[in-house]
């Protein structure tokens, strides 16, 4: 144990006469650590709370708290008196020079075996969360498991501590220095998922034919809603790495892919990118881009114009199952749609989202849909 504590008591009179410096002389007690709590509710820092029984004498007491080979934020150290808060008062805290230590000066109105709680932020002990989900063959639901991974590289061994997360019951767990422990802490079977294919005109190539013998993969994600309907929704799902598998119908699974998830509050969606579909092919082309309504200044220079633009996109589904493709298109500046053969939702001023339902591939080839957008950008300044 690297955190040490010693209680130094001195008679008040002596202190008054000799002064505080000589007070660090006699070791009266080395109290053992009693209940210890590791609080992991804040992902940025880990709070340790430990209880110790101090043998206090009436008068002024000095308690020396020092640590070695561990990293404690000294400003975070707090002392809470539990048994006689009215009669035991922490007067001041002093820091000895060049030492990882501090000295509490405690005034006590009687002789007490006082239980105190010492809290501090300890570095290099933390937790991670990982997810493992197994989808059914039809990809409608997943069996979700979440693991808590405790990593202790703090320099301190915790033989037996009560571990607290930001929700749920606390549990007893010991963890030695340099040890990592992985334990199951959430299991939800049959969590409904939505499979999402997303093609974004800003990030993906428009025409695979123009690439050098490469496929354009369309990102595929699973969407899980953190709510009661999904068998979740009791707490935020922590961010972490998620690995997805799928039941292959032969009592085995295949690995679908992995993604990192951010924190998902209750009611929000977790979207996990599993891999790319190469069985849906989008070929987008600009078929027209010309200026109309050109306005000129007195010198005859063009100062303002509108555009007349046509974009077509051919979407082919080579899969033997239907799919819903989310297609994102971007139009900059001020614009209006002259004609569009598919319904879209305007996500913001410059972003259009189409939900395109694609039937499965038929006997005579892939299912094909063609989007045609005819729009004008307005008041473009030269």
């Amino acid at each position, binding site marked *: 144990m690297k955190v040490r504590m010693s209680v130094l008591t001195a008679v008040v009179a002596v202190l008054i006469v000799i002064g505080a410096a000589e007070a660090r002389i006699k070791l009266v007690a080395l109290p053992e650590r009693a209940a210890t709590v590791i609080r992991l509710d804040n992902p940025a820092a880990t709070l340790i709370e430990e209880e110790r029984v101090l043998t206090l004498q009436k008068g002024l007491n000095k308690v020396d708290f020092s640590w070695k080979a561990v990293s404690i934020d000294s400003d975070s150290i707090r002392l809470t008196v539990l048994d006689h808060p009215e009669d035991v008062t922490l007067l001041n805290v002093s820091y000895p020079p060049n030492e990882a230590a501090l000295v509490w000066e405690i005034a006590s109105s009687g002789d007490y075996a006082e239980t105190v709680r010492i809290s501090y932020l300890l570095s290099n002990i933390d937790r991670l969360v990982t997810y493992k989900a197994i989808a059914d063959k039809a990809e409608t639901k997943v069996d979700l498991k979440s693991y808590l991974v405790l990593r202790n590289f703090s320099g301190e061994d915790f033989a037996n501590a009560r571990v607290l997360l930001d929700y749920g019951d606390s549990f007893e767990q010991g963890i030695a220095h340099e040890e990592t422990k992985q334990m199951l802490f959430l299991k939800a079977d049959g969590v409904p998922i939505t499979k999402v294919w997303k093609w974004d005109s800003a990030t993906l190539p428009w025409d695979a034919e123009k690439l050098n013998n490469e496929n354009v993969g369309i990102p595929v994600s699973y969407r899980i809603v953190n709510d009661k309907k999904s068998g979740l929704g009791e707490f935020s799902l922590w961010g972490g790495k998620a690995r997805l598998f799928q039941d292959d119908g032969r009592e085995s699974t295949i690995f679908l892919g992995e993604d990192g998830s951010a924190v998902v509050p209750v009611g929000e969606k977790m979207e996990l990118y599993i891999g790319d579909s190469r069985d849906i092919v989008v070929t987008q082309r600009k078929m027209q881009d010309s200026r109309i309504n050109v306005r000129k200044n007195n010198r005859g220079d063009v100062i303002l114009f509108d555009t007349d633009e046509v974009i077509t996109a051919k979407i082919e589904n080579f*899969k033997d199952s239907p799919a819903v493709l989310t297609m994102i298109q971007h139009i900059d500046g001020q614009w209006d749609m002259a004609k569009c053969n598919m319904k879209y939702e305007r996500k913001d001023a410059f972003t259009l989202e189409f939900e395109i339902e694609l039937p499965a591939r038929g006997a005579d080839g892939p299912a094909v849909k063609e989007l045609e957008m005819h729009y004008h950008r307005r008041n473009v300044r030269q």
Partner: protein
Amino acid sequence: MKLGTYIIIIATVTCGAWAKVDLTTLPERETVQLTIYNSADLTLVRESRPLTLKEGANSLQFSWENTLIDPTSLDMLPKAYAGQIEISELVYPARVRNLGLWKIDSEVSGKVPVEISYLTSGLTWRAFYMGTLTADEKAMRLQGYVVVTNNSGEDYENAQTRLIVGKVHMIDEIAALARRQYPYGSPIAVPRAPAAMAAAPARTLARGAVMEMAVMDTAAAKPKEIVKEGLSEYFLYTIEGNETIPTGWSKRLPSFEADEVPVVNLYKYEEERYGPQVIRFLSFKNNAEHKLGETPIPGGVLKVYRNAGGAQHLSYTGQSAFKYIPVDEDVELSLGAAADIVVEPRLMDHATENYRFDSKGNVAGWDDVQTYRIKVSNTRDIPVKIEIKRNFHTSYWKLTNKGDCGAYEAEDLDTAKYTLVLEPQTRRTFEYVVRLYQGTRQEDWRK
């Protein structure tokens, strides 16, 4: 068989300590299944082992020295006694590398089959193809192969081998996770540990063993079949039976064969893309009409040969690469520049007209009128299809044709495409006139 992974069951009395005491069993793995990916260095291994558990708490030690296993992927699942066996935690103890300790609470005592799965790197597979064209180049025999290579450091004997076609999304490399000093890393930046294994130890099998294997292989009446099925966005190839692939070895297996796939000799000309040369493509479709179409074709290199003369002599035509071809998709295999098909565009006339002037009397707009003559020659003794693309670098253009070239197709806002079929040993010439609207003349342009 040398195993890189070991399992040891430790009796529970020692209560949580991982002292290697009270060794009860060292179970062999009964079956092993490999699911190998080719878009990432990744293999899912699933093995079954019979464990002998005691009632109460059990500790199970698993170590993976000299392998490329990602320790964070380790998972264990009891395959019997549902609800009576709980795997409470997996501990990666301090100051020991490549070792995990499972804590198992069991209500049963005796043999329990468990399944252990993990991800490893070092096993790969790739597809490659051989194409043999008939003498008239109207059809091709297409043979697909897969090559599985094991550099994982672990011998896998009698493994059910499955291959995944598809692109999985990964955020970490399995090989990097396998080399980590601590399975989940450390909150403190630790100095990089030496690689878990610098290289898989080169394994040499005795010559006799190789011969024996060869005898066993030829003893089989026919090559192994590969069962193919779609799962999610991927295709799963399951190789019939089991395979033994010692570390350091590769194995080639036939994946499919299609005889007489009708092909079209397609030639493309596009100056901006290929320069002043014609590129040859073999084109067909991944469908039933072309004796294919049962499954997508995974990407890989194709070597194309042509039957030359009798007696099954071959001539090497060239090399191409497949990208992933979904079912019903067109395939275009580039075989490189061709000298026997010639496309010669020539500017025959150039004029400017329809001048517009600004308020100062300077030129503000005009039309460029260009006449091109395109000479196309097929010097081959087979019919060919030729696609000629012309780019105008502006969206303000108008095109009129002269001669025998069929209608053009507007490919996009500045490209027109002509498609011609030329009989053997023929030549064709056509002309087009393109009007390019420049400057303020663009205001007069209408589609």
